[in-house]
């Protein structure tokens, strides 16, 4: 009833190939984006923007990047934290060593650096598959954690090992307020989501999916595994690198390699699994869930008027987080995006049973 596609006839190719072929989808997505740009910064408090919305959007970008690799191309990667770190440190080095570079160019260069490294670490994927590959990607994680800690050139010989992001400035506008940062992150997130949506329904996305479903069969029908796998690694690392640069520059401000440790990789992986593998919407849902859950768990005892020591709270957080992860995997292994599409399906025929 609410969700009726009857009467929406496609009379030309253009309308048939739209990103959102159903009118309700198109309008609701547009409404959400418009609301995110206009209403949210107006109503949200600084705390909400700084510590929830900004990290949520940045991690959603990283999750989209990882989803290309894991969800669309089927290559499990446990090294996404390292690629965020590469993006962050590349951006830092470009910003400090090349003065006067536009911030957007810095981000793109950071993504590009990350993509090059991604291609390098994607090469083993041509020989190694499944969990062997997953463990092999951990090599990247530990190598880069070590490198940014020990090789002083990357941190510009800063004595403490932690680096500080330069002041953010774009086209002469200085980005200092939470609202301005929010606009920057949101604009990039929207662009990334749009690119991602189009990339995955085009030729390249389809070749990734063919590789994911069965690589030998894909090879037989003429998809080159080399190109498909390496491009997935490159594109995925590119977006993860941009997210890493944003995370460091916009969210953290000053950081050390520990900000991109293996727990970050697992966090991203949780996001795309809970959100839904192979779904762009799922990346946002998963990022929201994984971001908000620990905050909620942290606040929940206080909300119910129970006083616990911080140690107990952190252990309880661990327990509940673990239980919820398992529960979600059992309840819906295909993630929140699948729940969403089931809901849509139900709305389509409601209130009639058929």
């Amino acid at each position, binding site marked *: 009833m609410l969700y009726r596609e009857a009467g929406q006839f496609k009379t030309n190719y253009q309308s048939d190939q739209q990103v959102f072929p159903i009118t309700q989808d198109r309008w609701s997505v547009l409404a959400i984006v418009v609301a995110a740009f206009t209403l949210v910064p107006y109503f949200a408090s600084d705390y909400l923007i700084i510590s929830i919305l900004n990290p949520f959007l940045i991690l959603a970008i990283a999750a989209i990047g990882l989803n290309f690799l*894991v969800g669309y191309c089927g290559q*499990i990667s446990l090294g996404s934290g390292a690629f965020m770190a590469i993006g962050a440190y590349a951006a830092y080095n470009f910003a400090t060593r090349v003065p006067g570079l536009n911030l957007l160019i810095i981000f793109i260069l950071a993504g590009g650096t990350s993509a090059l490294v991604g291609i390098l670490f994607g090469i*083993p994927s041509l*020989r*190694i*598959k*499944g*969990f*062997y590959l*997953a*463990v*092999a990607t*951990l*090599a990247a994680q*530990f*190598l880069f*954690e*070590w490198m940014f*800690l*020990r*090789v002083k050139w990357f941190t510009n010989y800063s004595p403490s090992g932690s680096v500080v992001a330069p002041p953010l400035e774009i086209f002469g506008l200085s980005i200092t307020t939470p609202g301005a940062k929010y606009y920057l992150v949101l604009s990039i997130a929207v662009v990334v989501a749009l690119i991602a949506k189009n990339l995955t329904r085009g030729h390249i996305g389809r070749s990734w999916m063919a590789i994911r479903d*069965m690589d*030998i*069969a894909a090879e*037989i029908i003429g998809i080159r595994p080399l190109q498909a796998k390496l491009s997935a690694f490159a594109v995925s690392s590119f977006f993860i690198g941009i997210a890493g640069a944003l995370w460091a520059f916009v969210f953290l401000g000053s950081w050390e390699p520990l900000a991109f440790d*293996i727990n970050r990789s*697992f966090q991203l*992986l*949780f996001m795309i*699994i809970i959100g839904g*593998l192979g779904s762009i919407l799922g990346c946002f849902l998963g990022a929201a869930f994984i971001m908000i859950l620990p905050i909620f768990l942290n606040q929940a005892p206080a909300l119910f008027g129970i006083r616990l020591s911080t*140690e*107990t709270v952190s*252990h*309880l*957080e*661990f*327990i*509940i*987080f*673990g*239980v*919820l*992860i*398992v529960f979600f*995997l*059992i309840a819906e*292994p295909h993630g929140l995006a699948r729940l969403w599409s089931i809901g849509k399906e139900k709305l389509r025929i409601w209130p009639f049973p058929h």
Partner: protein
Amino acid sequence: MGFFLEVLIGGLLVGVLYSLVALGFVLIFKASGVFNFAQGAMVLLAALCLVRLIEWLPKWLPALQNPALVVFLAAVLSCALMVLVAMAIERFVLRPLVNQEGIILFMATLGVTYFIEGAGQSVFGSNVYTLNVGIPKDPVFLFEGLFEGGVLVNEFDIWAAVAAGLMVVVLALFFQYTRTGRALRAVADDHQAAQSVGIPLNRIWVIVWTVAGLVALVAGAVWGSKLSVQFSISLLALKALPVLILGGFTSVPGAIIGGLIIGAGEKLSEVFIGPFVGGGIEIWFAYGLALVFLLFRPQGLFGEKIIERV
């Protein structure tokens, strides 16, 4: 030469401990196809339980003052805990997730990891505990006749290596000669075929997770008395992963030999290459080594050959 041997032997002894953790991974992967990330957390839980029970038992039962008896009782109770954990995991995680993809099961074991870490530390405390199971920790000299000064080895490490070796022999005998062991091997070979000849998969999973839990207990006891029981033991899982890909996910001898290679390799590289590049390379060196091996043998040293069909 003496120094080289000392580093090599030290590395091999650490490698034995990696093998113990890797063994737990392999057992579970073979029998249920689950890449069990929770193995490190299980080691932590077993070690925590053991060390705290040794501390608590004399307080609960004042009559019990014989240290050896306390250690024995604590070990038995820890075994019981690991059995319970295995049963709970099978009932609440594996059974509902049967037939799901590997990555979903892997993520589920990550959830289990969080749960075990949180629950274990809230029950048994989260401080650093010294574990003493009554094995001497004196340094001894070996091969004094061969080199000047001999090779310095910790006596405890030798005992640990012996314990690990015994564990492997017992496991090998168990798998080879008992009825349950045969059933386990059958399941590892082919789930469907095993089920169709009447082997109950659920019970096999409980058994194999229990065995992995017991291996974790041994690994936890050894690591705990070496480095004291603390949260970082849980990160052992990450140390054992390169061992796995080096030796192959499905091979018990692979886990042992892989562990020895990784242990020796990382210590030798740290001592002989580390100073040139700034030190601390043992964290990623093992992974690099394993990765290079994988390029030539994608299924690890002893893993089953992967045959793919369309």
